[in-house]
């Protein structure tokens, strides 16, 4: 079975109709478990006190904020090279989710920063690159709304997405590029060096899984909406309305 089979809108609609209920229930279960564990069952941190509970929202939302842009990038490149409409619509569908997650990451980070650093905001590398990422998301969304012809909009937004990728990369790796700034290094890493205690990392992994599932649920639902909107556009065009 070829992956490209799902670039056919009908195949995408058939498959997504089957998996959407399963993935929605998984999202609710995972997210509820992770957030309940993180909020109610974790101990106080010896340095951060109970403000550590913000991590269960901040880290997963930041993860999705950055990776949504990469999903949009891959979809945009597929559109630019292979002209699969579903891929352009996936990118369009993902943008509002990325905006929401970036706002959550920034707000929760600001609240936590005020408690730990004594300030809501500092123009440090990671915070600044996140702010620029939000601006790119808003610009991307605005461009989709501003261009009337769907294919032209897909073309222009894809190019913007490729250009904006530099800020998504900066958001992800800013703490590695520059040692200055208030923001600390990554809370979790794939190497063997542990950064946070298991009491916090276990619920955090569940929250991250919950946010990934939430992203998948929303992007599938929103892509279905975009495909149906495109179908309406074509039907009305054929009827001459």
């Amino acid at each position, binding site marked *: 079975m070829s992956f490209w089979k799902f670039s056919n809108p009908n195949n995408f609609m058939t498959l997504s109709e089957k998996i959407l209920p399963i993935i929605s229930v998984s999202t609710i279960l995972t997210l509820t478990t992770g957030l309940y564990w993180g*909020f109610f069952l974790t101990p106080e941190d010896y340095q951060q006190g*109970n*403000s550590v509970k913000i991590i269960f929202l901040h880290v997963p939302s930041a993860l999705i904020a950055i990776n949504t842009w990469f999903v949009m990038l891959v979809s945009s490149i597929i559109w630019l090279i292979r002209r699969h409409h579903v891929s352009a619509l996936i990118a369009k569908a993902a943008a*509002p989710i990325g905006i929401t997650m970036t706002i959550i990451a920034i707000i929760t980070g600001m609240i936590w920063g005020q408690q730990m650093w004594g300030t809501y905001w500092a123009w440090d590398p990671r915070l600044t690159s996140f702010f620029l990422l939000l601006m790119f998301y808003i610009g991307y969304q605005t461009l989709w709304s501003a261009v009337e012809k769907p294919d032209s909009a897909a073309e222009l937004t894809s190019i913007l997405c490729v250009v904006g990728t530099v800020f998504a990369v900066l958001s992800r790796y800013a703490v590695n590029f520059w040692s200055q700034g208030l923001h600390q290094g990554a809370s979790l890493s794939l190497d063997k060096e542990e950064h946070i205690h298991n009491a916090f990392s276990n619920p955090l992994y569940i929250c991250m899984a919950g946010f990934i599932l939430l992203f998948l649920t929303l992007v599938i639902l929103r892509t279905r909406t975009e495909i149906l909107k495109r*179908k309406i556009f074509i039907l009305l065009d054929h009827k001459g309305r």
Partner: protein
Amino acid sequence: MPELGQYAIPVLFAYSISLLLIAAITLVSYIQYKSVMRKLQKIEED
């Protein structure tokens, strides 16, 4: 409810605003989907 001490207000505010935003994007996505489905059905019936 855990004892949050001096961090009660910031932690509860962070959770409230985040859950509100998640609920909002989920609700808006679902309402848009249902609305487009209804519109398509109406067009197909005409």
